[in-house]
Structure formats: C-alpha cells, structure tokens
C-alpha cells in the first residue's frame, strides 16, 4: 500500500499518505481479530490439542488430522453430504418460490411497500428466535402447526416432528424456506424493478409473446441477480447453525447434524480442539470457494444490469 503514491495511473484524490490512516484501522482490526485467529486455527488443525485428554497438549502432527478427516471420518462425511443436500434442497425451493412470488408482486401489485415490508419479518428475526418459534409450533402435544397438519391429514398422529428422524430434515428445510424465501423475493423484485423497459418493448415489436420475453429477455437480463441470490443463500445455508442448534441440536442422534453443528460438537462437547479446527477449516474452505465465485461471477457484472 505504500505504493499508493507511486502509482502513476490512478487518479489520486487523497493527498500522499493520507489514505493510509483512513484505511489502516479497518485493515488492522480484521488482521488481528479475523486473520490472526484464522491463522491460529490453521496451526491448531495441525496439532493434537485436546482439553479432554491431558496427554494431548498440542504437539505438532502435520497433516494427520486432515488425513484422518479425509479417510476415516464417516461422521464428518455424513455431515458434509447432509449439509450439501440441505443447501441444495433449501436454496432450490427458496429460489423457485421466491422468484414466482416476486413475479406475482411485480406484475399485479402497484403499491408494494407494505407488502414487501411485511415479507421481511421472518428473515429479520434473530435466527435463535426463529428456532424457538418453530420449536413451539411443532411441539408434539400442543404445537399449533402440528395440530393443523394432523387435522389436514398430513401427519398421521400429532407427534413431535423433531423427535421423528424421518421428518426432521424436511421440517428444517421447510423452516429455512419459510425464513428465507422472502429474501429471494425481495432481491429478485429489486432486480425486476431495475430492468430497463425498452428491451421488452423491442421484443414486443419483434413479435415475442410473454413466454419468449420471459426466457429470451428477462432471465438473461436477471442472470447476475439470480447468481447473486443463489450464492448468497448458498453461503448462508452452508453456515447454518443457530436455528438447527436451538430446534434439534443436531439430533435425534446425528440426523440433523449439519457441518457447523458437527464442528461445534467436536470443539465444545468433545473438547478435541485440534481436530475441531480441522473440521472448521474445511467449512471455511467451502465457503471461501463459494465466496470467490460470488465475487468473480456476480459483483462486478451486476453493476451494469441492462446495459445498452
């Protein structure tokens, strides 16, 4: 960054050196409290540190933990694929539903303010509170939703959904859909509102009907926004912890043990910090990959939606 002043190509509004004090605190804070810990975690991942076993004081063991994880940890891989399935199912349903709702609002509702504001409610609630709400609603003996599902014949008996292994993941996906579909709706709606009118008019003149306008014009123009929504949701869903932790704690057994919850268990239930760091590292790695896709594919393109 000391090169700042030396770069002859940039347009410098800031006086020499005066940009440094402005940007330095932010950079330092992130370095100390995020990169530092991350580096430490990476180091810990290569040790045998465990609070549960007094013999494991944190000796350096190289990549043993990673080898163990890749080859001999069926629980990790079970959890990994569970997470992948959860992300795919939840994000796909949210996307299709959210897009459809956005189209409905865009097409039929003129005064959208109140409606979109109310739609915001689920996603602005603390995820912990969302977990609580649904835990209450899905109680076996007095849960409101359980009761109506039973009345509608969708549930054979009014039992607690979260203690029925086969129903746990579908319920968690449904709850994630409930919470985050409005997010997709809002973003897509913002995209729809920002679409230029003229390509659609041109397509009308060119003879395209509504369906062709949708597939030939609208979807391609919305592509950056669609990619953005899918990636943001994908990253968030992959990190999912709070709701599931409150609702099931990963159970019954490990039926709903998503990666974050597994990492939590290894670290704070088993106190196996070395191996826990390895798991956490893997979670970060996946998110980092998704994140760089987000950056490359989405951010800079979305700046000029519509174009000429």
């Amino acid at each position, binding site marked *: 960054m000391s090169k700042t002043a030396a770069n002859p190509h940039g347009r410098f509004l800031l006086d020499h050196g005066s940009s440094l004090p402005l940007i330095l605190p932010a950079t330092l804070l992130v370095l100390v409290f995020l990169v530092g810990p991350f580096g430490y975690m990476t180091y810990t991942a290569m040790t045998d540190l465990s609070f549960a076993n007094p013999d494991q004081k944190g000796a350096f063991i190289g990549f043993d933990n990673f080898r163990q994880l890749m080859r001999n940890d069926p629980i990790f891989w079970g959890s990994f694929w569970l997470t992948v399935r959860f992300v795919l199912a939840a994000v796909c349903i949210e996307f299709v539903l959210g897009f459809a709702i956005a189209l409905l609002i865009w097409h039929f509702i003129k005064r959208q303010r109140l409606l979109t504001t109310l739609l915001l409610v689920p996603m602005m609630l603390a995820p912990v509170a969302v977990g609580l709400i649904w835990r209450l609603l899905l109680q076996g003996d007095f849960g409101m939703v359980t009761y109506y599902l039973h009345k509608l014949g969708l549930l054979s008996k009014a039992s607690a959904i979260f203690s029925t292994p086969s129903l746990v993941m579908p319920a968690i996906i449904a709850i994630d859909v409930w919470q985050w579909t409005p997010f997709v709706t809002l973003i897509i709606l913002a995209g729809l509102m920002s679409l230029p009118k003229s390509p659609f*008019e041109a*397509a009308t*003149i*060119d*003879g395209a009907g509504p369906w*062709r306008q949708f597939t*030939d014009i609208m979807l*391609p123009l919305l592509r950056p926004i669609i990619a953005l929504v899918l990636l943001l949701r994908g990253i968030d869903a992959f990190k999912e912890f709070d709701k599931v932790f409150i609702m099931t704690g990963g159970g019954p057994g490990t039926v709903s043990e998503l990666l974050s919850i597994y990492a939590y268990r290894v670290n704070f239930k088993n106190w196996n910090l070395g191996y826990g760091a390895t798991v956490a590292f893997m979670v970060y790695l996946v998110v980092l990959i998704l994140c760089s896709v987000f950056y490359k594919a989405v951010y800079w393109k979305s700046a000029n939606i*519509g*174009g000429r």
Partner: protein
Amino acid sequence: MAVSFTEVTKRFADGTTALDGLNLKFDLGEFVVLLGPSGSGKTTACRILAGLEHPSEGRIEIDGRDITNLPPRMRGIGMVFQNYALYSHKSVYENIAYPLRIRKTSPAELDRRVKDVAELLQIGSYLHRRPSQLSGGQAQRVAVARALVWEPTICLMDEPLSNLDALLRLHMRTELNRLHKRLNKTFVFVTHDQEEAMTLASRIAILKDGKLVQFDDPRTIYRRPANRFVAEFMGRPAMNTMDGMVENGVFRSGQVTCRVQCPDGPVTLGIRPEQIVLGGDEGFAMKLDVKETVEPDTLLIFTNDKGTLTVRTQRDCDDLAPGQSVNIHFPPDSLHYFDAKTGERLR
C-alpha cells in the same frame, strides 16, 4: 393504401393528456416526420401506432383495416428505439436475427436475411460483437437493421439520432435518407429537431399539445407556416414576429415601420431573419445590439423596447459595430401575416 389516425386521444393514468383528438393520414411509402416540442405527444403517437400504448379513444387504421386493438406483433411494424434497446446479452447477429427467430424463419433464410441487412447497413464485420462493444453509431445501425430485417411494411423511429454526437447525426441522417429511397418503405420518424425533419421528411406533421398543427411537405411548412407557432418553431434562427397595428396600410410596432398589404387593425407580422434587407434608404433605422459571426453568416440582433429583431446575412459586416444605427427594410413578398389573437395565418 394509407395509415390513418382518427380522433385519437390518449390520457395517461396520472391525468396528463398526451394526444387530444389527433387526426392524421398518410400514404404508404412516405417518409413522415412527427415533429414537436417535448410534451407535444409525438412519441405517444408513434407508440400507439406501434401498439405499445393503447389509445383512450379513437381508431388507427392501416389500409382501411382497423388495427386499434391488434397486438404489436400482428401489425407488421418495425421500430427503432431512442436508446436503441438492443438485447445486451445477445450478439449483434442474434439481435438482428431475433424477429426472424420469433417468426420461425428457416435457418438458411434467416442467415441470408441477417447478412443482407447487415450488408445494407455496413455492419457486416461486427456481427459477432456484443452491443456493449459497439459505438453509438454502430449500435444505431444494429437497431435499424433489427427493425428492417423482417421487412415490415412500416418502420417507426423514435428519436433515433438524438443520442448520437453532432457529426455522426448528420451522417446517419443522410444514410437514412438513402435507405428510404432504396427500400421504398414507409418510415415514421419522431424528432424534436426541425433540421432533421426538414432534411428527411417527405411530409412533416407538426404536433402541439397533442393536436396536429400542420401536415405538409417541408417546403410548404417553411414558406407558408399555418400559424405563428409553426412559424417560430421552424427555421433557425426563429422567424421574427412582431405584434403591432396597421393604420392606412402601414404597420407599426415600436421603431418598426413598414408598408403592408392588409386591412387596418391589430396584426402579428412575421419575417424570416435571412429575408431582411440591410442598408438602402427604404424602411426604418434600428440600433444594433449584438453581432454574432457564424461563418459564413452573420447574425445581427437589434433591440428596442418592444423586443428584438434578428437578421441573418451573408454580406460582409465588418463596418457594423454594436450601438450603431442601421437601416432595415422588409421586402413585401417575404412578410407573413398572423391573426393577432389566434395566431392563425391570415393569407
């Protein structure tokens, strides 16, 4: 063989009336220019003909067939948009081919037609590019190509040149003129630029406040403007108009005095700046206020308490300086008379 607007009115939801009982009729094969200041309804008229807007009242016909309620794709009309409205995610080739793809043209025919029209508009070498890689002029040509490729009977152009820089605009203007001669299609062209209208149109429809004011060929519009509005709108610099009184065949307005052939009473007199004669001993004297040289012409602006008088001349004006008194003469043939109240042309 004609396009006709009958009593077409368009009111928007916000209460503005864009068109107010427009009546307009022209033949196929013409180059019609809809001209007017902003808010005159020219673009609305164009969009109603395209089918993008629906008239509140009135009827549109092509060849005697009522198309008022026909969807745009059934009208056989192509359109060039002001901002070009190219599909930014498709290549130039696909942009041009799109109307043909919708009409399920066979691949060979489609390819031939796209290449033909690209050739015609000299964009053959950009076919693989994206719209974002085109200059304004090239994007313009692509838009025209897309509008013409499926050979519609009518081609609408909504201020297509207004986003181009001055030089390119002149060039495209010539190009459009040539295109019209060659294709012999009906062009309907919307603009607020009277010079564009004059050079392109076979007939100019001048709109004001949603009504047709005059519909004539450019020469008639220039020489016999139907009212004071047209007179002042067409020509640059604008026609001089003066409100005054005629007494005993002599018109007076401030220092302006001249012999006229019209009955006594109030009248508005008009004369084009380029038709005023300087010097000589006829006429009246006025004080020169500002001198602007626009080679090869010189604009002389005279001011008195009743307003200003602009003169455009090609003669050498080095001898004139602001503040100087100059003799001015209005040749009788070049005078226009308008009703002092309504502004309508008197004869």
